[in-house]
Every structure is written in structure tokens, then in C-alpha cells.
């Protein structure tokens, strides 16, 4: 608690305001010990109290703090203030009146979505250009992370060219489930979203375009990993081409036959996949049946299992 108090005092001092440490401590003490407020919340409350007392706008207090420079793939926590060095990979339609721009930022490590609020009053960014995004806030929704640019953020164009990358990862395990929305699906011709019961979430009832994909769950007995196979990978791996899939579906008068076929080929078997990580998925570039010889494992585990009960306990 002393530490929190010191930090608050130091920060106010930077703004040229002298606050009594004892006063900070008394307030913290009361909130934390007497009223059982979590320390983080208490800190916030105390800061706000003194800001009001001294008539300092909140933005001034928080803005001038330097936020750490992180990589896009390192954003794994909600509500952090960070600085990013990124290229604007894609701009999306800002589909809300309070949004001025939204899209995708990327650096060498990966990508992250961003939102820029109208209220933030920031300059527009351009697709393909590189910027330093200072003081942006991370947020999370259903496991996806994004950053939002607000009043306190800064956008500084940089001349350096950033190559957006995505380090591939490998996962081996058994496929234990294929999720719905796999197999032969239809996509909206306008936004490419998968259709549900022939309707697009955005554009309503549309004449869909056929596509083939697999959303599967892999499991190595300790971890679960969602994987996504796009059309090319699905075609080459299952041997079912999109045309073949359409034919099968027409013949059976049912799209589900394709899914059944894929399930019986994949589920319950061991695979190694390589691909880029995207949210909770691995976008699979290559998938192969796990055929690593198991004899060595047998020897290794046997040796360990039959060894006397030594190291542990």
C-alpha cells in the first residue's frame, strides 16, 4: 500500500501538485482495509479524488504517461495501455456513427484489430502506411483482442517499412471433434461470411457461393487447440474437391453427407498441423497424419516408469 501511495504522490508531483503522502495513505487504508475495496480500485478512487480536488483534467493525468511498446501478438490482456509500431493492413467500414475508422494493424509478430473513435479527434490513417500508435487501450471480446484509439492516443507516421508477419506454429494431437459450419458451406457473395440457414448475418437472404472448409478441435490430452482448414487444404487433404462435394450433396439431396465423410476420415486420428495462429485458431497451412515412430517413445517411457521411485516425493 505504501508503494501505491508513493507512486501516486510521485505522479502528482510530476504535474506540479504536492499531495500529502499521509493523506493518500489514509484514504487508501480506509478503502482497502475497512471497506474491502481491491487495491487497484482503491488506487483509482484516490487518484480521481485528488484530481477533482486540484482541478486536473483526467486526460492530462493519464496521457503523458509513456506506455510500453509491445508487439501485436503480445496483446493478451484486457484493459492495458500500450504503444504499437504497426502497418495498417486493412481498413474496414466504420459501421457505427461513433467510429471514425476501424481495421487491422500488423507488425512482424502478427495482427490486431483496431477501432478509432470519432470523439478521439485523431488524424485518419491510410491502408499500407506505417505508424507509431502511442497510448492505445487493449480490449477483449470473446477471446479476440483489439486496440482502441481514444482522446489520449497519438498517431505518428513513420517512414520505416514494416513487414507484417505471422510466425507459424506446430501442434500435434488427435482430432476429437469437427464443429458445425464445416464441410460444404455457402458464403455471402458480398461479405464472404458463412451463411446460416441460407441467410447472411449482415445482408439477409442472399444467393450464397459454395465453399469447403473444416473447423476442427485437436487435443493432445493436456491442451485443446481449434484449427481451421481452408478450401485448398481441405481439398488436398481429404481428396474431396469442391466440385466433388457439390456432386455428393446433390446426389444425396443433403449437404451434410460431405461433413459426415470428412468426419469419418479425420476424427479420432493423430495429426500434426502447421500454420499461423489467429485468435484461438491455427489457420492450417499443412496437415499430415502423425507417423513419427513410436518405438523410441515406448523405450523412453518404459525406462522412466520402471525406474525406482526416487526423485519425487
Amino acid at each position, binding site marked *: 500500500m505504501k508503494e501505491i501511495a508513493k507512486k501516486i504522490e510521485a505522479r502528482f508531483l510530476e504535474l506540479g501538485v504536492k499531495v500529502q503522502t499521509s493523506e493518500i495513505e489514509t484514504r487508501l487504508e480506509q478503502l482497502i482495509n475497512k471497506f474491502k475495496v481491491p487495491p487497484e480500485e482503491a488506487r483509482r478512487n484516490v487518484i480521481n479524488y485528488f484530481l477533482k480536488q486540484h482541478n486536473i483534467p483526467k486526460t492530462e493525468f493519464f496521457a503523458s504517461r509513456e506506455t510500453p511498446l509491445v508487439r501485436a501478438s503480445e496483446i493478451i490482456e484486457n484493459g492495458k495501455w500500450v504503444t504499437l509500431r504497426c502497418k495498417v493492413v486493412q481498413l474496414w467500414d466504420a459501421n457505427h456513427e461513433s467510429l471514425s475508422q476501424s481495421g487491422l494493424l500488423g507488425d512482424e509478430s502478427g495482427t490486431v484489430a483496431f477501432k478509432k473513435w470519432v470523439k478521439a479527434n485523431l488524424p485518419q490513417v491510410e491502408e499500407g502506411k506505417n505508424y507509431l500508435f502511442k497510448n492505445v487501450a487493449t480490449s477483449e471480446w470473446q477471446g479476440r483482442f483489439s486496440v482502441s484509439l481514444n482522446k489520449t492516443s497519438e498517431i505518428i507516421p513513420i517512414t520505416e517499412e514494416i513487414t507484417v508477419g505471422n510466425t507459424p506454429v506446430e501442434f500435434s494431437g488427435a482430432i476429437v*471433434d469437427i464443429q458445425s459450419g464445416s464441410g460444404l458451406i455457402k458464403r455471402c457473395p458480398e461479405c464472404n461470411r458463412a451463411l446460416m440457414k441460407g441467410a447472411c448475418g449482415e445482408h439477409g437472404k442472399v444467393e450464397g457461393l459454395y465453399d469447403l472448409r473444416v473447423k476442427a478441435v485437436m487435443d493432445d*490430452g493436456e491442451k485443446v487447440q481449434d484449427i481451421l482448414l481452408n478450401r485448398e487444404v481441405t481439398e488436398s487433404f481429404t481428396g474431396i474437391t469442391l466440385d466433388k462435394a457439390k456432386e455428393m450433396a446433390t446426389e444425396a439431396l443433403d449437404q451434410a453427407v460431405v461433413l459426415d465423410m470428412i468426419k469419418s476420415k479425420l476424427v479420432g486420428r493423430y495429426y500434426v498441423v502447421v500454420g499461423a495462429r489467429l485468435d484461438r485458431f491455427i489457420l492450417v497451412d499443412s496437415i499430415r497424419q502423425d507417423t513419427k515412430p513410436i518405438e523410441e517413445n515406448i523405450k523412453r517411457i518404459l525406462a522412466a*516408469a520402471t525406474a525406482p521411485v526416487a526423485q519425487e516425493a
Partner: protein
Amino acid sequence: MAENGSGFVREVAHRVFAAELKESNLQAKEGQDQYSPQYLITPTGAKCNRVFIVGTLTEKEDVGMDAEFWRGRIVDPTGAFFVSAGQYQPEAAQLLAKTTPPEFIAVVGKPTIYTTKEGNVLTSIRAESMYVVDGATRDRWVVETADLTAKRIAKLQSNEPDAVRAREHYSTNVEEYRAMVAMALESMKAQ
């Protein structure tokens, strides 16, 4: 990034040998909600809400009264699993219906325990999905399960909550389970 925001995290499918599952009878529930997941803690401390097994289907039987209800016996190097599939697991039930034993089968399912009229406690697996696989897959499963079981045994003396509960409930005989793992692996060598 373990959580995915919606608060729902898919349960890992644990690898457990038949001999170990047969001895399991410690149920645990996380949270008070009626939808909180049920777990079965095994003697080596695997806390399973879901298991993945591969073995040889040796017998099957439709024990349903009105609707079909299939039960199968799936054998691994250490013993047999009982697997069931009814009207709420149509795909798995269908597969059992059309498969002629013996055949290698992979099952993903929920472990359940029930008590017979005679008072015996039995464990079985309610299949979520079930597929015919090949011998290589089965061998790989045996080795993987041996590996993971050995890892659990090594951790059994630690202070991890699942290990502690398993130890207290079963007073697990570590040697017995080491022997089981060794036996399963030896059976692979013999082939």
C-alpha cells in the same frame, strides 16, 4: 489465452487406460450451478469431464427398450471400457449399429459412473462421437496414454489439488499403476 471471453472453455479429452477408469469413482463438481461441469477424478489424478480412448470393439449390444440404445465393449491392453450411445448421440449410436466387431474404434465421450442393483459401481463412457480407425492410431494412443499416465503418476505426490484429492480418496498404489503402464508398453513391443 485459456479463456475465450464467452466464459466457455472446451474440456480437454483426457487419456486414461481402462484399468484406471474402472477404479474411478470420485466425482467432483466445479461451482454450484446446475450446469457446472461434472468431473471424474481418477486414481492418478486426471480430472476428466471428457476422455478420448482408442481400442478394439469386441462386443456390442442394443439394450434399448423403445428407442435404440447401444452398448459396446472396447478393449485396450489393460482391460475393457464400456461405452454407450443412445438417441441423444445419434451418430455414435449409428456407428455402433453398423460396425461388426472386432474393429479398432476411437471414442470421444463423457465418463459417467452408476451403481447397479447389486450395489456395484461401474464406470462407462457416454460417447459423443465414435469412429472406426486403423491399428496405427490405436498403437499411438496406447503409447500416448502410457506417457500421460506416467506423467500423472510422477505428479501424484505433488501439492496440485487434483493429485491431493486422488491420493486422499484412493490411497493410490503407485506401483500398481506403474506396472500397468509398463505392461501396456510391453504389449506393444511383443507385436
